[in-house]
């Protein structure tokens, strides 16, 4: 059964497609016109070098303004759209309604600390249908907590806590959902291998698992 | 762009005030320096010190650049260079400052 697409990803894809389409259109127009000119006005054999002047001495303020205003309108609309999405990641719902997980990145792995003090290294388990807040920091160099399946990233910076929030999708039929957390900032030799599986489980299963964690405060084998 | 430039301005760089002015400025600078130290020794909130003392420092710097570096007589066009640099620095300072104080 296919894994559901998280909301944040869906929104992101919409915005991306929208702007990508606009971008592609822009490129096609500009380049198309350029190539068209380049071909149409190509210098032909035996053609006189004399070309009739069309009023090019005149300033082109009007055209410039028109082009500028078109692009301003496009950009402004996209901006509004993008700012409507942004807060989901940067300003997640209040802590009271969400599960807060402290993430400590270090060379070269992630350590996840759950509200009840349980810790996992190199793998993360979160419940479905819940807003999760990752409280990201680093214990040595600058890393990046990248969750591309949710289209969110935040830098893990020593001496600083950065918050990133995601809302996990519902399992709809899957026993669990598997995603990958990657480091997206060059952090040393093993950077390429610095990743951690993110497993989304059914909330009850998750609570049971978490309870077990506290009971035997065993940290799972690191990945 | 190509306006003929008044020739009397051409040797402004050479024009210099009297020797007395220089010594006067120097006295002023020394007094300002001592004032900074005195102000520091006065009781009061640190933020006030900071503003006052930095203001004095700024005034001193301006005085030096205007008279000793002769900017006052070079005309504004040359002064635009340091001004541009200072504007850039202020911009960097403000942006960087915002990232500290309000950073989450």
């Amino acid at each position, binding site marked *: 059964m296919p894994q559901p697409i998280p909301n944040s990803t869906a929104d992101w894809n919409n915005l991306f497609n929208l702007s990508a389409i606009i971008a592609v259109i822009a490129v096609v127009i500009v380049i198309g016109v350029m190539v068209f000119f380049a071909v149409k006005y190509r210098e032909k054999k035996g053609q006189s070098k004399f070309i009739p002047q*069309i009023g090019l001495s005149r300033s082109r303020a009007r055209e*410039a303004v028109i082009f500028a205003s078109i692009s301003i309108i496009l950009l402004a609309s996209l901006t509004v759209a993008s700012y409507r999405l942004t807060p989901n990641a940067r300003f997640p719902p209040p802590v009271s309604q969400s599960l807060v997980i402290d993430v400590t990145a270090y060379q070269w792995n992630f350590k996840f600390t759950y509200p009840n003090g349980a810790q996992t290294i190199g793998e993360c388990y979160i419940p479905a249908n819940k807003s999760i807040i990752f409280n990201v920091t680093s214990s040595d160099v*600058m890393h990046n907590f990248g969750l591309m399946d949710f289209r969110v990233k935040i830098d893990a910076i020593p*001496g600083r806590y950065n918050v990133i929030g995601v809302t996990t999708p519902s399992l709809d039929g899957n026993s669990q959902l598997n995603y990958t957390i990657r480091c997206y*900032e060059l952090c040393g030799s093993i950077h390429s291998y610095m990743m951690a599986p993110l497993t989304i489980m059914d909330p009850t299963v998750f609570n049971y698992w978490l309870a077990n964690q506290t009971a035997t405060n065993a940290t799972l084998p690191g990945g | 762009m190509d306006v003929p430039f008044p020739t009397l301005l051409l040797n402004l760089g050479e024009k210099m005030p009297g020797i007395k002015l220089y010594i006067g400025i120097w006295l002023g600078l020394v007094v300002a320096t001592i004032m900074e130290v005195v102000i520091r020794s006065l009781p009061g909130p640190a933020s006030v010190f900071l503003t006052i003392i930095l203001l004095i420092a700024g005034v001193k710097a301006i005085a030096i650049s205007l008279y000793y570096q002769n900017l006052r007589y070079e005309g504004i066009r040359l002064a635009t260079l340091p001004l541009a640099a200072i504007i850039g620095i202020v911009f960097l300072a403000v942006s960087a400052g915002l*990232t500290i104080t309000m950073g*989450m």
Partner: protein
Amino acid sequence: MFFLIVAGSLGMLMRTQLATPNENFLNPFTYDQVVTLHGLLMILWVLTPLAAGLANYIVPLQIGAKDLTFPRLNATSYWTYLFSGLLLVGTVFLPGGSANTGWTLYAPLNTIQFSPQPGATLAILALALFAVSVTISSINFITTIVKKRAKGVTWTRLPIFTWSILMTMALALFAFPPLAAGLTLLTTDRIFGTVFFSSTQGGSILWDELFWFFGHPEVYIVVLPALGIIAEVFMTFSKRPLFARKIFIAELAAVTILSVGVWMHHMFTTGVNFDVLQAFSITTMAISIPFEGLVVGLVLTLYKSRIKLSAPMLYCLAAMFTVTLGGVTGVLQAFPVLDYAFRGTYWIVGHFHYVMAGTALFALIAGLYYWWPKITKRKYNESFAKITFVISFIGFNALYFPYFFLLDMPRRIATYSILSGWASLNFDATVGAFIFGPAILLTLLNLILSYRKNESSEANPWDSKEMEWTGDYSGTAEASTTKDNSIQSKNGDKS
């Protein structure tokens, strides 16, 4: 040139490494060094000085000066540049190797704790020396352009390329000192044990600020001369005046000024105050507007013209393509929310390779071809040039276009697993690299060969109207029309 080849081959090494999953052609540490050196050399030691080198010869000609104002300083700048580059390349041979931090040298990975090898220190010092060199030459160029224009070369008649160089140098003057400051702090950190960037009191954000305050203008330092060259070549080969010349210059100026005010879009994911970031995302979009104006102006220059598709023209058309593509992808990154996904991925790599490797390199090659007869009095092999152009353009796109689909592949990873599904695209890219690299080498070969068989070219092979070719700086021909905003249009009339 030498550095171009070195850096290029480093790039090839990387592509070889990434051609197939789980490749062990380079070990990760070596790979990181290769990444770092490739970035530093290409951006700083190749693209920036290539433009400066051209300008060094062309700008005096365009403004009718005998030479730059301070020949000695010019020489000093050149030698410091050369030695700094040699130092950087030399770091490879040191025990412990070179810097392995990527060209952004992010703190605190760049501190002595995390990259203890002396090579890293030397690389940083080389960078500082380079900054000195650039500052010297920017002083020289600005003074020259302001003070040494021949009679008649008023600001209105100043050629576009000279304009672009003037702005480039002003930008360099702004951008490099903060970098130098950051490098000073970093050096003292590494040598005298100060704790700026190893401290957790905002050390690494501080580096971001200082570095990107330099880093983003640097992009424009690389791109502005390219635009200048494109404008010159378009004017010459389409026999048309530049479309709306004054507006073009104004847009150049706008880009220059704005480019100082956008650097924080490199820090969208550092989690600093979000309002500031949004402000910077707006400035970033603001800068795209004059930039778009430049591109449109260039395209409309071709309207109703007589285009001669010589090699320089072809390269400029290619550069226009890449700058447009790179530009729009850049605009997408201006949105913080989109950038959350883009940051540190191969999408970014593709974007700035289109802007830098594409636009800058193609335009600079165009400039070399265009001014070659002027500089060396030699004719290069036109058809050979066209062939190499086609090859390199195909190779370029085969190399960098796949990057836009590697949206979730982290940059600067030495290898990746077969499961990631990145293998095929990476293989394409590598194939492209092995087309692109040799093509560039052939281009250089072509230029060198033109030396060997000394078939001298006529004074003005493109029968250009530009001053460096005609050698007429008086402007008397246009004296009647100083109000006219476009000198070349009158030239067109007379022709």
